[in-house]
């Protein structure tokens, strides 16, 4: 029983962590917490199921198609919901614009796809019991993603440009970096990560239109725990959340599990307001 809690805990935790990275990636270049993060996770599952099961595409093609559509939606998010409100960032209007955009995505999915959970294809057919692919696939994807991102940020020019923009927007622009294009690219990248989260977790979470808000919620917690913008922190926070949530499900049952999760979350935040791995407070005066 313990193993099954660990397996499912790590699996959902990995999905939450990936959504957390999605938040972080969008935040880094725009300072916007976008409500579309969870919807991208939802779309990863729905599109994967649509391409592979409904349209019968081979797995690799289906995955590529899913990620491409997600990336396009990411770019669209930047154009429609982020760029127009960047000027009034102080007013937090992005909450409204990204939320409205997320709602559009969700409603279209509900009507055009289904309001009931739909099956997600079994991708490899490897493993059973607690070693079933539905458990290890998200964890593996999360590991690959974080390694890929580290490589991107540390070893490639565009990755360093991302970091520069994330560090200091104005300075980066002064240096002649194409700050706007980089932002668009980061939204596409974030969307791909979100799509991967949904795709790899598809067998676990199914292709269900209502997964979006759920993932939005639980994907934010790793961000808060790990510290805003800290991807490694998000991974640790995500896995911890997954394990805690599944243990709580087991220990106190479904109704009070989410109460336990949120009580824990609030307590941890109050103890470590910048997240467990966040940087200290900025200089005020």
């Amino acid at each position, binding site marked *: 029983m313990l193993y099954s809690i660990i397996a499912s805990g790590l699996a959902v935790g990995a999905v939450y962590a990936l959504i957390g990275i999605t938040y972080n990636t969008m935040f880094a270049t725009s300072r916007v*917490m976008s409500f579309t993060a969870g919807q991208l996770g939802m779309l990863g599952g729905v599109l994967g199921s649509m391409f592979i099961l409904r349209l019968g595409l081979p797995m690799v093609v289906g995955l590529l198609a899913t990620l491409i559509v997600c990336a396009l939606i990411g770019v669209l998010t930047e154009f*429609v*919901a982020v760029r*127009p*409100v960047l*000027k*009034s960032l102080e*007013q*937090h*209007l992005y*909450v*409204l*614009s990204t*939320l*409205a*955009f997320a*709602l*559009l995505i969700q*409603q*279209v999915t509900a*009507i055009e796809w289904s309001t009931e959970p739909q099956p997600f294809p079994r991708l490899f057919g490897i493993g059973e019991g607690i070693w079933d692919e539905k458990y290890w696939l998200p964890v593996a994807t999360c590991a690959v993603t974080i390694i890929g991102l580290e490589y991107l940020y540390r070893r490639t020019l565009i990755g360093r440009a991302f970091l520069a923009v994330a560090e200091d927007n104005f300075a980066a622009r002064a240096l002649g970096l194409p700050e706007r294009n980089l932002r668009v690219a980061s939204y596409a990248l974030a969307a791909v990560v979100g799509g991967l989260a949904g795709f790899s977790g598809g067998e676990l979470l199914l292709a269900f239109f209502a997964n979006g*808000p759920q993932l939005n*919620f639980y994907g*934010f*917690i790793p*961000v*808060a725990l790990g510290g*805003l913008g800290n991807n490694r922190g998000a991974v640790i926070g995500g896995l911890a959340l997954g394990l805690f949530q599944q243990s709580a499900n087991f220990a106190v049952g479904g*109704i*009070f599990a*989410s*109460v336990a999760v*949120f*009580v824990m*979350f*609030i307590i941890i*935040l*109050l103890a470590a*307001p910048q*997240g467990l791995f966040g940087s200290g407070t900025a200089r*005020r*005066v």
Partner: protein
Amino acid sequence: MHITRAKLTAFVPYMLILAVITILPMTGNDYRALIGTRAAIYWILIAGLNLIVGYAGQLAIGYVALFALGSYTASILAAGTVTPEIPPALALLAGAGVGAVFGVVVGLPALRLRTFYFAMSTLGFATIVTQVALGWQNVTGGGIGLSGPSLPAPFDTAWGLYWLCVGLAVVFTLITANVAASRFGRALIATRDAEVAAEACGISKPQLLVSVFLFAGAAAGLAGGLFASLQTYITPDAFTFDLSLLFFISVLIGGRGSILGPLLGTILLTLLPEIAAPLAAWSTFVYAGLLLLIVLAMPGGIAALLDRESRKALPSGRAIVPQHDALQELLGGKRLQQRLQMSGILLKFGELRAIDGLDLSVEPGEVHGLIGPNGSGKTTTLNVISGYYRPQEGSLTLGGETLPAAKPVKRAARGICRTFQTPRIIGEETALENVMIGGTLAGRASFVEALLALPRARADERQIKATAMGALRAVGLDSLADIRADRLQHSELRFLEIARALMLHPRLLLLDEPAAGLSVQEILRLGALIKAISREGVAVLLVEHHADLIFDVCDRVTVLNLGRVLAHGTPAEIRVHKEVVSAYLGA
């Protein structure tokens, strides 16, 4: 003259809303009563929430938690299943009470958590409340829920309830407008946009926020109880995340620091889904699309759209002309004259000795210059005096009494005021309102008196405003009193900060590079102003790079280097001090 006309036009939208409220019942359409009542109930909550989101800038997105608490409290008490049956009116009040208490519980993390983190903690509370309502079946009815309180006549009909809720909504509009226009409202905005300056003016954020959280919680609880009456029946699934966002978004759409904007936002958001409803399955899609359009069309919120004043041209070729008589009037009269004494102050950041055994005194009535190269510890010294840093060693006294370390908010009450290297100004407020922030401590009336605009609160306002006008005259900005601060020039902001600092009749005034960015003419006037201030018995500590200004106005000068005193003396002595000349003054 144009001010009064502007005030009149400001009332027009309210008059229109009132007209609609009065005409609506004549249609006799119960659906309109329902939507009107719903908007009124939402507004009662949002009016309170507006102070938190729109004024204090806290992202409280989970207010449905308090709404649900009020709803359940009122319903449970009125039903009498757990306690003896309680009259509905009292049950509603009890709901407000529970809302107020939990308003503080939900809100307190704001003192520790920033923006998103606080936002998520409020959402966490919202989840907890609905889950508990679901699980605690014996009391809340679990998934089956329970009946809302049924109010006695004449409020038991659709229009009766409408009038009750609309009446309360009007009351809440008035009292939140009272708060907004009081020193508390300005202080909230100050903590939002210029937190450090607010602290320097003696505004205690925890105290202020607790009052506002109590009030907003009570409003949310009351709204929740009325909602239960309107719905006739409540279940946990009525308190959705969407509803919580509606509350929050209404304030965003409305715009910050406005009452009318969020009010219109509430009406808009209550009506939009109804307009989209005939599209059935596509209605929510259309609703979301309209929301997006609204943001794209008016990124500044409704309030920015309504604000015509700020688009008028400012007089060109204006000059800052401090008025000496106004200064005397402001600072004249008896005051405590106290001496600042720093001895052996040591402040380390890790291994770095930012201030290394500093001795410094500033006498009342003198201007004391503090100069030195970049990184020599000038601003750090000001920050120690104003309580931002806790020195590891040394003593700090004013008038012989020790100043507690690391308590910036306590400084204003001791008569220590300051300006900042980059002016900390609230751009969205007028120059006058910015200066009035400095007078927050001068108010006597409590938060409740301000809510109800009782005589003492009104007297406070008159007095603070008069003082602020005096301060503006003293620094020479009185002609710009009604102009939004973000439209002023940089040099004007420097004088504005001085005016704000003068509001508290300081015993010690700390000026951090006030001449930076000023023209030669303006520096001369600044110098005269600083001198005049000190001659009223104020001790002035001036950090400055402009050597001319220093030597013109200072009575004594201390030169810092690497956190230590390099030289000390009259300007004449410093001017010829060898080390200073070679190390700092150059040529």
